[in-house]
C-alpha cells in the first residue's frame, strides 16, 4: 500500500488550559474521501486548522506526503499541496469570482487558464458570474467559490470545513455531490460536517469526534446506522 498522504499522530491542540483536541490519530490515503463528523464544538475545525497550520499543536505531529510539517507556516503548507476551505466560506469579499480563483493558483498563465476552465466546468454557476464581486454572491455561490478556490492549486489533500453551513438541503446536495468527482481525480479529501448523512454518502469512511476525542471510526455504511453517530449529535 502506498504511504498515506496525511498522517496525524497523537495530536493535541489546546486553547490555553483547555484541550480542544486530544489523542488524535488519523491517516488518509491518496484519493480517499473521509468524513469528519461531530457536533458543534467537537473539534472538527480545530483539527483542520492544525493540519493547514493556522493553529499550533501542543503535542503530536502531522506529516504530509511523508514529510513532517512541524512548525511550517500555513502558506508554505498550502504551496506544498494542502488545500483549505474554511468554515463560513470566507471568500475575499472585494475580489471578483475570477480574481478569487486566480490568487490561489501559483502556476504560470497557461496553467491558470487551464485550472480556471476546469473550475468553471465543475461549477457552471460561477462561470456565469465571473466578474461579480464575491460579497454580492449568494451563500451557495460563495461556498462553491470557496471550494473552487481551494482546488486551484491542484492540492493533493483538500480540507473542507462544513461546506453545507447555512445552505439549504438542495444546495448542500449540489455542493457535496461533487466530492466523489474531485476525489476520483486523485485529491484526498477530509470533509468536516455536521450533516452526517450527506457526508457519509459522499465519503468512503468516517471519523467521529466528540469533545475533542475520536469516539468511532469506520466505513460509511457501518457508521450511517450506528448509535455512536446519533449519540454524537442529538444525544450530546
Amino acid at each position: 500500500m502506498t504511504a498515506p498522504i496525511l498522517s496525524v499522530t497523537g495530536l493535541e491542540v489546546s486553547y490555553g488550559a483547555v484541550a480542544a483536541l486530544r489523542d488524535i490519530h488519523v491517516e488518509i490515503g491518496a484519493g480517499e474521501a473521509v468524513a469528519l463528523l461531530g457536533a458543534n464544538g467537537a473539534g472538527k475545525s480545530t483539527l483542520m486548522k492544525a493540519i493547514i497550520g493556522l493553529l499550533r499543536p501542543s503535542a503530536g505531529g502531522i506529516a504530509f506526503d511523508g514529510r513532517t510539517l512541524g512548525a511550517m507556516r500555513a502558506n508554505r503548507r498550502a504551496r506544498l499541496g494542502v488545500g483549505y476551505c474554511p468554515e463560513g466560506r470566507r471568500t475575499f469579499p472585494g475580489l471578483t469570482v475570477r480574481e478569487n480563483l486566480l490568487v490561489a493558483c501559483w502556476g504560470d498563465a497557461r496553467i491558470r487558464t487551464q485550472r480556471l476552465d476546469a473550475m468553471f466546468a465543475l461549477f457552471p454557476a460561477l462561470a456565469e458570474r465571473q466578474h461579480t464581486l464575491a460579497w454580492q454572491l449568494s451563500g451557495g455561490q460563495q461556498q462553491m467559490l470557496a471550494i473552487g478556490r481551494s482546488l486551484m492549486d491542484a492540492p493533493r489533500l483538500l480540507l473542507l470545513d462544513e461546506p453545507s453551513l447555512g445552505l439549504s438541503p438542495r444546495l448542500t446536495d449540489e455542493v457535496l455531490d461533487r466530492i466523489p468527482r474531485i476525489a476520483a481525480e486523485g485529491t484526498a479529501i477530509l470533509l468536516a460536517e455536521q450533516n452526517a448523512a450527506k457526508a457519509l454518502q459522499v465519503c468512503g469512511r468516517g471519523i467521529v469526534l466528540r469533545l475533542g476525542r475520536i469516539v468511532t471510526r469506520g466505513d460509511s455504511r457501518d457508521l450511517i446506522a450506528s448509535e455512536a453517530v446519533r449519540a454524537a449529535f442529538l444525544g450530546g
Partner: protein
Amino acid sequence: MTPWRTRLARGGAAGPLAVVALAYAVLALPHASGYAMRVLGTAGIYALLAIGYGFIFGLAGALSLAQGAFMGIGAYVSGILATRYGIPFDAALPASIGLPMALALLVGVPVLRLQTHYFALATLLIGQTALLAATQWQSVTGGANGMGGVPPISLLGHAISGRLPTLLTIWAIVAAGAALAWWIGHGRLGDAYALLRANQAASRAIGIDTGRLRMVAFLLSAGYAGLAGSLYVHALGVLSPDVLGFPVMVTCLTIAVVGSRLRVTGAVAGAVLIIELPEWARFLRDDYMLAFGCILLLVVVALPGGLIEALERLLGRLWAPPPERLPDPLPLPLTRRPPRSDRPLLEITGLTRGFGGVRALSGVSLSVRAGEVVGLIGPNGSGKTTLLNAVTGIFPPESGDIRLAGHSIAGWAPHRIARLGIARGFQTAALAPGLSALDNVAIARDAAGLGLGRAVWASPRDPAWRRARREAMALLDSLGAGAHAGVLAASLPPGIARLVEIARALATAPRLLLLDEPAAGLNETEQADLAPRLRGLVDSGIGLLVIEHNMAFLAPLADRLICLDQGALIAAGTPREVQGDPRVIEAYLGVAPSGEDMTAPFSVAPT
C-alpha cells in the same frame, strides 16, 4: 507578613517612588538652581496633564489626540483673562477648566461613540483648529507671537512668585489631582471601566451606560488639561501658540505610554522622567523630540504596559502580597415568586431581521414564562445568537415586537434593557481579565448606580461596595465557583469562567436570564453540577432561555424546546417531541441516501 509590608506591596510602585521623591525633596531641593526648579515645575505640569489623560486614554481606553489642545485652551483662557482683564489665576479657573470641558462635552457627544480611528481624527481636528484660531485671532490672542506679561500664579489674592514657592504650589496641586484621580480610578468605578475596556457589550449587558462613563472620562481629562494649561501659562509668564502645538500632545502621549497609562504613579514618574531626560542627557537637548520619538517607539514595541507596570511586576515577584481575604457570603434577597399570570415574561412576535441581504431571522415568535426553561436549538447559522442579540438590544428588529412583562423593549438601548431585568451570558465568557472573579461579579450589583459623584464621595470602605462583594461571594458559592473567587479572571479555567459569568448575570437580579451555550467548555461533571443549579434558580421565579447544542445537558433541563433553522422557527414543543420531529432531524443530520429518513431515534441499519 507584617501589615506595613502588605500595605506597601499593595501600593505598587508608589511606595518606593514616594520614598525617592521624599529623599530628593529633603536632600537635593534646597540646593537646586532656579533653572532646575523651573524644569521640575514643568514636569509637574506635564504630570497633571498626563494624570488627566489617564482618564480617557487609560480608564476609558480611547485614543484621544486632543489632550494637548485642551491644555492649550486652558492656557489661553487663563492668560487672556489675566493680561487683558486682570483676572487672577484662581478666579479664572472656572473658565480655564470649564471651557475645555465644555468643548469636550460638545464634541464628545457625537464623537465618543465612534470607532477609534474616527475619534482620533475628530480629536486631531480640534487640536489643529484651536491652534489655527489662536494664531489667526490676533486681536484676542496676540496671534503667532502670543502675549507676554502674564502674572504669576495667585491664590486668594496672594501672588506666588519665586521659583521655590511656584514649584511647591504646582506640586501641591499635582498631589491633590493625583489623589483624586487615584480615588476615582480605584474601587467600583475603576472596575466598571476595566470591564468597559475588556468588553463593551458585557458592560452594557449588566446595565452600565458605557456612553456616559466614556463622557465622564473625557470631561475629566479635559478639566485636568485646562488646569495644567493655566498653571503653565502663569508659571511661564508668557502665552504662546506653542502650547497648542502637536509636540505637547506627543509629549503627553509619550509620558502616558512610558509611565503606564493605567497608573497615576506612572503619569507622575513618566512626566519627571521624560521632562528631565534632556537635562540629564545634555546631548539630547537639541534633539529631545527625536529622543522622545525613539523612546515612544521602543516602549510601545517592547514594553507595552509601560515602565511602571513592568516595575510593579518585578516588585510583585520579589514581594508577593498575601491573597486578599474573601468576604463572608451574604445571599441575595429572594425574588418574590411572581403571581401566576397568564402573561408570559418574554414575548417575541414576528421578529425579523436581515443583514446585508441575508435573512438572519424571519418572523420568529416565541414566549418564555417566569419559572420556565425554554431551550433554543438549531444548526449553525440558524439565528439563535441573533435572536438573543435582538432581545438584549444589540440591534433593533426590522419588524416584529419584543415584550418583557408586557412592556415593548424593541429598539431600546442594551443597558436600559439590562436594567429592566434581562441578563445574559455570552458565548465566550466576557469577563474583565485583570479583575478577580469576585470583583467581576460584584460590579454587576447595582451597576446602574455607578457614577462619578458616588465614586468621589464613597471610600473603598463604602458599605454598599462591601455588601456587593458579600453578595457576589454568595452568588459564586451558589454556582459552585466560590473556591475561585479571589482568582484573576484571566487565570480561571474556562468552565469556572463560564460559571462566574453566569453569576455576574444573576447579580443583576434579573427576571429573565438568557444563556448562550453555558455547557460549552464544561466537562461532564461540571455539566451535571450546573443543570440542577439552573433549575433551582428557575424554580425561584426567573425565566430562562438557553441556547445549547449539547442535548444531554439541555433535554432534561428544558421544559420546552424551540428549534430554528435558517432564521425561521421549525419546531416547538417538549424536548421529546422536538427531538423526534422529522424536520429537526433533517435540519441537523440531513436526509439519508436511500430516502430512508433518520426520524426514528433508534432505528436499525438499512439493508
